[in-house]
């Protein structure tokens, strides 16, 4: 009795902790490990915010990024090249940050 009850309490607590942690960690992203979750694309739930075209619908249906109007076509590669050239022209600003040149779109890139 003096051993059984504490052991039962420990087993129950251990079971509860293990069950909840494994359930919550199943979706957790771990850098370096394969990421097999569905592709998601969010916009705010406000009027007027929408996606043009029909190809984007397929993202919500769980299909891969290849469904995005052919993925990266030649135009995409061209844009990327221009971006790289602009970035090379802009160069480093001394603080370790690189900026892209002026064009239709701006922004930034990073990796981890």
């Amino acid at each position, binding site marked *: 009795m003096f051993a059984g009850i504490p052991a039962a309490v420990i087993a129950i607590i251990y079971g509860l902790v293990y069950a909840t942690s494994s359930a919550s960690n199943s979706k957790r992203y771990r850098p370096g490990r394969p990421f097999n979750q569905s592709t998601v694309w969010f*916009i705010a739930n406000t009027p007027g915010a929408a996606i043009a075209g029909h190809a984007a619908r397929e993202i919500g249906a769980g299909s891969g990024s290849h469904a995005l109007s052919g993925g990266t076509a030649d135009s995409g590669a061209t844009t990327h090249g221009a971006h790289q050239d602009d970035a090379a022209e802009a160069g480093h600003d001394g603080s370790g940050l690189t900026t892209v040149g002026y064009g239709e779109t701006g922004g930034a890139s990073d*990796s981890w």
Partner: protein
Amino acid sequence: MTVGEKSGNSGRAEVLNGPFTTRQLLRLDDALRGADESTGLTFSVYVGDLDQPVRGHAEKLHSQLNDPDHSVLVAVSPNLRVLEIVTGHEARRRVPDRQAKLAALSMAAAFSGGDLTGGLVAGLAQLAGQAGKH
């Protein structure tokens, strides 16, 4: 809301198979709605695989938004471990590339620790703060 949900597709069910829990989805929803309402810009978050070249693919996604000029897309590829912030022509005036880079740095720091939601929420707040009130 997901793109599929907006389009009348089964996005609600699919998003539950995504990388976020319900609580994390609520945090993201709050962050996106707050950023949109405070700035007048349209913020969008994409988490999934990106084809090479990554920047080209992100720009293609950005161009599919309803008003690309006033939109900011944050595209994250956990497998490639890269993120892209794409700002439209008008959005770029509000969020200069240098500030976008700073937001990207803070997001990458969170992602390297495995915190996708925290990084996205912090990055959106940083971008919205930089864009200012509309």
